[in-house]
């Protein structure tokens, strides 16, 4: 049975560029039972023969949701082709995952980068996640607009070392990585505006006192450059940031230290984000802001 073609109008979906053995698990994770906001997924395939020859790469059909919300778009020109991207409704996509093309072997990073650049041209607001084959290329990607780079091998290396030093710690990572009912994930969420000016310590204290079903592990301090004139590429990029300017620097502060800045007693601003462990995406206001009498 063939997979469906994507409908003409898709919104808030995830586009996967290139097919490889990773597709099955990634779609499985995105459509896992524990995920509340399951996205539609469009797979952009260049080599249809390769896709058909490897049924083990296909998502599991017994997942009814996947059956209806996973689409395969076959385009000869490849994912870097503007028309292919438009056909996948990239302009309204939430995220794009660029997988390493298995036909390119160890040299796939160059092609993936070209796809990333094409994606950013079409939709600068799309969150781009790129699979990297060789970690030495990571530095080169800093100059591009790729939001996140995942080197599959690197994770394994780090987990091997972590488990080696602290036996069993792999299970803790697994419990926050995997989407299973009853397991946690790490979320990054905006600080509720009403809490701007409150210290991180106070925010955490409120969550504990409110018996919140999540736990904070840190925060992200965002710095912005001044707003650019409208219509420029820079302004388009920061449209999601409500005219604050271009996000120029992010400071990740996990387990904030006492007596340091940024630290536990740092006053958070409305552009800062909180890092939390939670079972599902939650509404922070509900727990952190006392209800008015």
């Amino acid at each position, binding site marked *: 049975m063939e997979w469906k073609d994507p409908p003409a109008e898709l919104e808030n979906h995830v586009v996967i560029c290139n097919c490889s053995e990773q597709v099955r698990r990634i779609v499985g994770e995105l459509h896992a039972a524990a995920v509340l*906001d399951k996205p539609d997924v469009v797979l952009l395939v260049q080599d249809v023969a390769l896709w058909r020859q490897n049924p083990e790469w296909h998502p599991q059909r017994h997942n009814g949701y996947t059956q209806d919300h996973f689409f395969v778009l076959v385009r000869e020109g490849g994912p870097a082709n503007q028309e292919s991207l438009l056909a996948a409704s990239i302009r309204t996509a939430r995220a794009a995952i660029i*997988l390493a093309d298995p036909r390119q072997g160890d040299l796939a990073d160059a092609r993936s980068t070209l796809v990333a650049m094409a994606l950013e041209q079409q939709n600068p607001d799309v969150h781009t996640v790129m*699979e990297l084959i060789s970690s030495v290329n990571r530095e080169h990607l800093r100059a591009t607009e790729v939001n996140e780079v995942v080197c599959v091998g690197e994770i394994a290396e780090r987990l091997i070392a972590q*488990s080696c030093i602290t036996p069993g*710690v792999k299970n803790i990572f697994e419990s926050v990585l995997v989407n299973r009912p009853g397991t946690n994930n790490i979320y990054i969420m905006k600080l509720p505006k009403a809490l701007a000016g409150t210290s991180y310590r106070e925010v955490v204290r409120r969550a504990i006192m409110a018996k919140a079903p999540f736990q904070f592990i840190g925060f992200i301090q965002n710095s912005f450059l001044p707003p650019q004139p409208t219509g420029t590429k820079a302004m388009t990029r920061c449209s999601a940031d409500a005219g604050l300017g271009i996000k120029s620097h992010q400071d990740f502060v996990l387990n904030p230290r006492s007596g340091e800045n940024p630290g536990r007693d740092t006053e958070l601003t409305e552009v800062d984000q909180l890092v939390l*462990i939670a079972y599902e995406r939650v509404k922070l206001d509900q727990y952190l802001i006392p209800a008015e009498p």
Partner: protein
Amino acid sequence: MKKKKTHRKPFVLVLREIMEPYEGGPESSKLSLVVDLFVLVCILASCALIPLEHVYPHHEELFWKMELIFTSIFIVEYLCRWYAAQSRLRYPFTFYAVIDLVAILPTILMLSNELLMLRMIRGIRLLRLLRLLRLLRLLKFLRYGFLIYHGVVQFRIWFSAANYQYRLKELGRLFVWVGVAWIIGSNLLYVTESALVDKGPFQEYWKSYWHILIVLISGIEDKEPLSLLGRIEVTVMLIAGICIVGMLTGEIVAILVKKAQRVGKVAIMPPEGKLERHFVILGQNAHLDAVIKEIHAATHGKNYILLVSPEAEDVMVTDKKVYQRVFALSGDPVRVEVLDQAQLTKAVRVVVLASEDESAKTPAHMVDDRTLMETIAVVCGHRIPMVVELRDPDSFGDVRALQDCGIEFILSKRYGEILISQAARNPGVTEIYDRLMTFSDDTNEFYTIGVPPELVGQHYRSAQLYFLEMDDEDITLVGVDRSPPERPHTEFLVNPDVEQCQVSEEELVLSETDRLIVLAFERPSLIEVNQEDLWSGKILQRS
């Protein structure tokens, strides 16, 4: 832009850090090492005074003054430790505090007025006993037991490596032969020349040593003997000298050639080297370099790493500092004799990497077959914490029995795939995981610690607040581990929640047997490290 404040530790914490035996971690101060060495020297010197007092009784006053100085140092040390202790009330009754007190008490008793009276009446025997009791301060070494043991182990490994690299054994043997030839030759010439001729260069005993040395080393006939027998003996010496110099040159050339051949490559494990508390990595693949670097970062290069694979000797050094304590052992990790050479019984951890033959493009399941064989080979004779990398998801289902033995399996690609999907859903999380999974002085790691006594019987939320308000150490509580001790992190709750975890509020009350999962920059000093776990290698001395 906000100015970054400098983090200033309270004095009591700084003092505690200094008084604790040096561990070499990111937060360990070098001053701590200096204090440790100073105290160790003081202990040795003060104990040396006891026999010296007997041997040189006329210097008794000087020795007594020195004894008073050492005792003052130990009193200051005792008071500092007391002041810096986590619980000042309980500290005097702890094991090491009692030892410290025993170390200073005899001298204090000798000083007391009452005893001075006793000394006048019948105190000689008592005084002797008190002097001998001062030897009890040798017990203070117990506190530094691990530091001394670690130092001895490191020195022994370093020496065996230097011995192998610089052929010290062969060179030593050569020098012994030179020495023997020198002594025999000098004495022979002296006796011969003294008996056969009246006057000559070899008639002075010590000068003959000098002449023979020149003959042996340079091959030049410095001063010729006058008797025929003496000349024959010098000729023999000359021939021996040429041989010795030839051998010496050969040895030096061999060392240089060997060194040149191994430039940029990992050092070979010395055949007679005795490794201890080392990491063993079986097999090699593209992950090897990164794994070595992560282990080095985690242990601050304290432990040696041994690579075992058929091509281990060809592994290139990518960072000299990291590879300083890495040895290569060529051989098939499945073979018992190779595993014996790797001294697995003394190792603290074993990592089995999926040995992939890149050129042959071996199927994943076949790579795993080999990896599993290596794992089984290790498991058969030893019980060491092991981490095994697998390639094929299908292999995962077959390893249940090995998992029950406490072996951890990591499917290399799986986590990367999950992270990609997570990143698509939760923008920014890759950076968070990156920081959590990397070992460095500025990043956090997960640690599991015992429940502090004041939190036993308290609710999990109270523990969260306790760590939140604690400013001495930067710790974030993330969960509770209730696994059996032999299988850590198998039964745990991260972010325990009554509804989600289907537990009652009572079940979230912490007990003595619980362990807390925390995020911290270094191993929290809140709970003292179990010395048994440290010696057995269950806990690695990181920081």
